[in-house]
Structure formats: structure tokens, C-alpha cells
């Protein structure tokens, strides 16, 4: 059968770390560290994760293999610049030479920040933006625990500029970790609300990467598969949190979405979500879940074909419908899903008042994620979306 569509011929590249996917792959973390030349490991995590059984498994395997490590767990959600600086001091003091990050997006982003500081010798704030690093970070191995942020495969690091209350976006190919170890077992200790938020984060990654103006055939492949997996499994997973198949599928969705957005980048959902997270310290996944339908509404006209393809993937049967109907079907789907996963909130509930909107929009318009949004936004557009999401 002759294919009846053309593929994209504009030049694109795809960067991805080595990754291991599967049950009990966490035990591989220690030997990967050793393989990468670890003399002393900077083990970054957070206080919650450090109490899980599977984290102890990782520690045990490090001891078995006989590599020293220094534990650093003073990392909060929406990791802060001063946490990065504190961690880098410890890294230097302890003469570490490799980073093992075990945790969600916050832990991995903070660990990336520490990596930047220890090899570039300046304050983390000096590296905000794209390609600001002059030296690569130390070897880095990740064991992601949320199936959401996918920082473990991406070239992104998001660090909270605590003083100025906004999230700095740091983008560089050098921030792609060396190895990501994806063990579905680690997801079993996640609570349901976090599972829901992470799932919505993955979905927004996939939506934004797919509709990105820097998208490519291989990103599209991953993005659409991620959308399909979320659609088929997120709600089920919340009902059966101990089903390893469902956990693994969420993890795979996160991986695919991560590979897609790492290379195609994101859009306004993220620029605005970063602004909210920085200013009000809100949950990233929650913000994304709230913002996504409004951004689809804003972008639909600029990437209609892509959105139709998403609608097809979501089995929304767009054929025969006009664009507005399709758009509405998509927005409805997103509202329904948000409700189905029990994210029953909006920006007002989260503490956003209309007087904050100009500030939030000002911060958001400076975010590099806007660069790949299919419809180039103006600050005013972002204000409008914020207002709609109240």
C-alpha cells in the first residue's frame, strides 16, 4: 500500500540517554555508576523517597558493589536555587565524581543544577536559559520515581529562583543524563493524587511536544503513543495502583512523552505552569492539568491538523466534525479526564487572584517554552488564559 502522506523533511535531531526499563532494574543503578567511573557518588533524593523499601535496595546494591556515596536529601518540591548551591558545596566537600538522582522531577532537576554548579563554578542563576553551560555536568544516573516529569531523559532542568519567585528554565544537551533506570516497582509507593498529577503532566508533555513547532516524526511517534497510553491506563491505574502492568504502562508513557518533549520542547502550558509554580509554589502536574484545556483552546487554530490527530488517537471520532467541534471535544475530554482522576481544582482555589495575573503573565512570557508553542503568544494572551483558568 502506497502511503498517502508526506513525512517531515526539515532537519531534526533526537537526543536520548541510555535507559533500562523493567522490573527490578533499580538494582542496576549501582553497577551503572561504577561503570561510569564512580569513586564517590553524590546520591540525591528527598526525605520521602529515602524511606521507601526500594530506595534501601539501591543503597544495599551500592554497598555490595563497594562504591562510596554521600546522601543529599534536602530537596523540596519545586527545587530552589539555594538548595542547588548547598548540594554543590557538599558535592565538592565530599569530593564526589558522579551523581545518582533517585526521585521525581524535583530531585532530578536539583541534581542537574548541582551538576552544573560543580563543573561550571558559578551560581546556578548564571545558567538560566538555553545552552548557557560551558562544561558538561558530571556523569549522571537517574532512577525516576514519578512517571511524570521525565527529567531523567530530558535536556531540561527547572530550578526555582526563590528570591524572585519564578522558575528558571535551563536547557542544554549537556543536561541529558547518561543513564535512566526505569523500574515500575518504584511507582508502587506513589500515592494516588501524585499518580494523577504525574499522569496529567505526562499528557501535557505529549500534547505540547506533539503540537510543538519543533516537532519531528520521531517525536510525534513517541508523543502520540504517550497520549494513547495515558488515555487507556491512567484512570485504570488509579483504580488498581498495585497493578504492575498499569504502573509500567504509565512509566512507559512518561518515558515516551519525555523523549518527545526533550527534543521538541513544550509550549504555553509549561511557560505558565512554571510561572505559577515559581510564584505560588504550586504542584506542577496540578497546574498543567488545570491549564492544558485552556491552552488547547488558544492553540487549536495554529495546529489544527495535529489536534485532529490527537483527537483520533483519543478515539474522539473527529471525522465529519468541524474544527470547532473537534476542539470542543478535545477540551471536554481533558476536563473529563481531570475530573476522572480527581483533580478538582482551579487557579482560584489554588490561590490565584486577578491582581496576580499581570505578574504571572510577565514571568510566563519570559519562559523559553513559549518559543515552541504552535501559536506564538503575547503577554496579553497569557493573561487571558490565566483568567480563563481561574
Amino acid at each position, binding site marked *: 500500500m502506497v502511503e498517502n502522506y508526506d513525512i517531515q523533511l526539515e532537519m531534526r535531531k533526537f537526543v536520548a540517554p541510555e535507559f533500562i526499563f523493567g522490573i527490578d532494574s533499580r538494582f542496576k543503578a549501582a553497577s551503572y555508576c561504577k561503570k561510569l567511573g564512580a569513586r564517590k557518588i553524590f546520591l540525591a533524593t528527598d526525605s520521602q523517597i529515602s524511606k521507601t523499601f526500594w530506595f534501601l535496595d539501591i543503597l544495599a546494591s551500592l554497598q555490595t558493589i563497594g562504591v562510596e556515596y554521600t546522601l543529599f536529601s534536602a530537596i523540596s518540591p519545586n527545587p530552589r536555587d539555594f538548595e542547588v548551591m548547598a548540594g554543590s558545596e557538599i558535592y565538592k566537600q565530599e569530593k564526589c565524581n558522579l551523581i545518582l538522582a533517585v526521585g521525581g522531577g524535583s530531585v532530578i532537576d536539583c541534581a542537574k543544577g548541582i551538576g552544573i554548579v560543580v563543573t561550571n563554578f558559578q551560581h546556578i542563576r548564571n545558567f538560566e536559559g538555553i545552552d548557557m553551560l560551558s562544561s558538561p555536568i558530571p556523569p549522571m544516573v537517574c532512577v525516576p520515581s514519578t512517571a511524570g516529569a521525565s527529567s531523567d531523559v530530558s535536556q531540561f532542568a527547572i530550578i526555582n529562583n526563590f528570591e524572585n519567585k519564578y522558575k528558571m528554565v535551563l536547557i542544554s*544537551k549537556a543536561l541529558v543524563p547518561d543513564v535512566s533506570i526505569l523500574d515500575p516497582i518504584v511507582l508502587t509507593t506513589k500515592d494516588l493524587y501524585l499518580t494523577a498529577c504525574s499522569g496529567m503532566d505526562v499528557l501535557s508533555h505529549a500534547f505540547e511536544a506533539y503540537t510543538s*513547532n519543533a516537532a519531528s516524526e520521531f517525536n510525534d511517534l513517541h508523543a502520540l503513543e504517550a497520549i494513547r497510553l495515558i488515555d487507556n491506563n491512567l484512570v485504570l491505574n488509579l483504580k488498581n495502583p498495585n497493578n504492575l502492568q498499569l504502573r509500567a504502562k504509565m512509566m512507559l508513557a512518561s518515558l515516551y512523552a519525555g523523549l518527545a518533549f526533550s527534543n521538541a520542547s513544550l509550549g504555553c502550558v509549561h511557560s505558565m505552569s512554571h510561572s505559577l509554580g515559581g510564584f505560588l509554589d504550586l504542584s506542577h502536574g496540578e497546574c498543567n492539568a488545570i491549564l492544558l484545556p485552556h491552552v488547547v483552546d488558544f492553540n487549536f487554530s495554529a495546529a489544527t491538523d495535529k489536534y485532529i490527530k490527537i483527537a483520533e488517537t483519543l478515539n474522539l471520532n473527529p471525522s465529519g466534525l468541524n474544527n470547532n467541534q473537534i476542539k470542543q471535544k478535545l477540551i471536554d475530554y481533558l476536563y473529563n479526564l481531570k475530573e476522572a482522576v480527581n483533580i478538582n481544582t482551579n487557579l482560584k482555589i489554588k490561590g490565584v487572584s486577578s491582581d496576580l495575573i499581570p505578574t504571572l503573565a510577565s514571568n510566563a512570557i519570559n519562559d*523559553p517554552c513559549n518559543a*515552541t508553542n504552535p501559536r506564538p503568544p503575547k503577554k496579553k494572551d497569557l493573561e487571558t488564559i490565566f483568567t480563563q483558568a481561574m
Partner: protein
Amino acid sequence: MEENWEKYKQKIMGLGDESFKKSYYPELQAKIAELESVNSNLQTIFDSTSDGIVIHDKFGKILSINKKASEMLNINKDSVTDFSIADFFAKDINFSELYSIWEEVLKGKTFSIESTINQNDTQKQFFVHLAMNRAFWYGKDVVVAILSDFTQRIKYENELIIAKSKAEESDRLKTEFLRNISHEIRTPMNGIIGFANLVNRPDISEKDRSNFVSIILKSGNRLMRIIDDILEISKLGAKQVGVDETQVNIFDLLSELYGIYIEKAQERGIELLLKKEVATKKCLIYTDRQKLMRIINNLLENAIRFTHEGYVEFGCGIKNNQVEIYVKDTGIGVELEKQKIIFERFSQAEKGLTRKIGGLGLGLAIAKENALLLGGDIRLESEAEEGSTFFVLLPYKPVISQDEIEAMKQVEVAKKDKYTILVVEDEDENYFYIETLFKIKLKHQYQILHVENGLEAVEICKANPEIDFVLMDLKIPIIDGYEAAEKIKEIRPDLPIIAQSAYASKDNKAHAAIAGCNDFIAKPISLETFSKIIEKYLSE
């Protein structure tokens, strides 16, 4: 912000050159290159130190060495691991001590020892300062040893010790010499001053007075000799003496000395023998007559002085292209351990001897230095109480060629076996001297007729046509030498007449020539001059 979005998008996609530098690989390559150059820099420093550096594992097995150590130990850098530190220590080292030091070093102490090490495969030894300390090398505890070679320093130290003891010995000898010199100078001075005080006293006899004067003269001469010796040794020491080579007939020189020393020997009741082992013409060499004379003088003087009974024999020969003059005595001899130092300045084999026999102990030193100046040396064979033989060795620089020597032998055979010689001399002593000269020069090949005045001389010439040669003193009774010569020439115009006189003025010489004398020699007649005359008139 908005206007930069396209640029941002391009950067995120990472297709520009910018994103390449974010890869590890260029960084790694740079790091590797940097490490390689750091390593090569360190290696350069490691290899350019003047000390040897040897890195051992904790059992003493060598892991690595630098260039200097490779040279010192004579081991190839590639084969270092075949060796251990213990392989290089001298066999007599205290290994248990070394072991305990090693243990301490492994505990972290730094140790420095001095030791001798043997080079691999050679006999060469080094004195080294060995500093050892523990270090970390490729993840292992090692001992780093720094080897500083102080062989050269030890050599200098030894040389200094020798030089110091030499200087001390020389100082001691000088002190001894000063003591001797004051004694030596004082003795003749006592004689001079003492007798000079007495000589004018009216109450002494003529005989005593003349005795005193002769003692004063003798003492004066002795003092002069002492002073000459001192001057000469100081000139020799300061290397201010040059060599003046002329044609010298060694045998004639020895004969002359024989003439001088025979009397002394007889006084001491010992025999003086002169032996000739070489043809006369072969004895004609180039050398410094005065210096050679000085050398043999010294040796003869010593030999006679130190011989109480028996004989002193001297002579010359030519061996291995060297002239060998020997002076042999049956005297007190020189002990083996003293044989070297007697040639040093101010030394005498027995310090006590000085008192008994006198002398400054400079003679042999002067002789030796003169011999060295002439390109030769002096050698001694002796045993205490058995006598000594001194050999003076000189480079043989003959005046005539070997062919001439051969030709000469033929001529000698054809020569007359016996000459008749007329000596006109009125003083007995002078006659005795002349007779001795003939004896030395012509051995038994002569017959001497002796007359004491001019008249007799003319008469004897008339009566004896076999006379071959006349030696005519000019100042003789009845008719003087000039007139006698004139008369003899009237009878025998071809008979060689040689005038001899203590008054060798130009006028005298001219007068003698007019009278018909063939030659003129001044008194005292040296053997050399005498020999020349004899050879000129008799050998032809």
C-alpha cells in the same frame, strides 16, 4: 522576549555547532590531552632531576625509576620490575637494619641513610644519600627513594685528607729543616767567627794562623754550599730553572768527578771506582752539563759521606734508549719505607743522622728535581746496612749517528797503542792532577815524561823523537814556556805543543801562539777541555 523565540527554538533543537560542545566527548578529549601533557610534563621533571628516583612496592620490588636512577643503577627502564632495592646494596650492608628502616618508612616515617650501592652488571660503586618516604602510586602504598650520588664528594674529601696530611708533613719537614739549617749554618759560622777572632792575635804561630785561615775558608765554602743548595731548591721549587742542553760527553764528566772525589774517598779510606761500559763517542750526548754535574756530584758526595768502609763505584751505560748513570756504595743503605721520602725536600732517612753526618737533606731533592728537569728520573735500589745504588736515567740523545759509531770502532783499532807524552810542569800537585787526567783519558795507552823546566824540556825533545805531545806550563824555571816551545818547534815543527797557564789573558794567549803553541788551555784544566785537546791532537 518574543522576538527571540525562533532563535530559542533553533537552540532547543540543537542543530547548531553550539550544542556539540555540550557533549562529553570534546571535553573528555581535552581532559585526556591535558592529562597526557601533565603526565609528560611530570615525566620530563621526573627525568631531569639530578637525583635518582626509584619507586618501590612495599616489598622493595622496583616499580619505576627515572632517567638518572636508570643510569646510576645501570638498569633499563623496561626491565626495572626484575629488580629489587636489595639487589643494589653492597654485600656488607646490615640487612636487618635496612629491613627495620623499611618497616618504619612503610609506617609513614621519612628516613635518610648513606650507603654504598653497586651498579648492575659492573664493578662500579656509588656512595649515595638515600632518602626514603612512603607515598601513594597508582592506588598503592609505595616507597619512594631519592638517590643523591656523592661519590665525587667522597673523592674530594679523600683528596683533601691526603692534601692535608701532605701539607702537615711538609710543614713538619720545614720545621725540621729550619732546625737543621740553623745548626748547619751555625757550625761553619762558629768556625769563621771563632777563628777570625783568633787570627789576628799576636801570640799565635804562623803555622796556626795559616791553619786558622784554612779553617775559615773551609767553613766559608761549606756555608756557601749550604746557601747555594737553598737557593737552588727554591728556584727549582718555583720552577724558575731552564734547561740548557749542549754536547756533553758523559764519561768525561764522570772522569772529571772521579778526579775531584778520589781524594775525598782516599781520606775516608774507601775505594772509588769508575767503570766505563760504553764507547767514548757513544757517550757524547745532548744534555745540560751543569745540572747533570750537580746530580752526580750530589750522589757521589752522599755515597762517600754515608759509606764507612768498602767502596763507591760509579759508571754509565746506555739501555733502552736511556743513559743510565749509577752510583753504588756499600754504605748504610736506606730502609724500604724511607726510599720514597728521601727524595722529598728537607728529608733525611734518619733525622738523627743530620747531627752525625751533617747536610740539609736537600741534596737528593735537588738531584731528583734536576733529573726530572732533564726529562729523566732517579731511582734507588737499597737495603738498610747493605748499601745503595742510585740510578740516574736520562733520555739518550746522541750527538753522532749509529753509523759514525760503527765507523769509529774501525778507526780506534788502527790507532797507536801507546803515546809518549811530555809534561812540563814544575809544581808537583799540578803534575799529579795532569797525570790523573791522562790516566782517566788514555787508560794505559800512554807513557809520561816529566820535566820541571824549559831547558830540560828542549833537551828531552831532542833526545826522544817518539814524543807525540807536549803539555807546556808557561811559567817554568830557567827558560820559560814560550821560549822552550819556540825551540822545540825548531827541532820538531809537527809536534803538538799545548800551552797551559793560570794566566789566561789575551796577551798570554797571543804570545803562546807566536811562540808556536798549537793550543792554549787555562788552569785549572777541566777534564772536558783536556779531553777535547787530547782527542784533537792524539786521536787523529
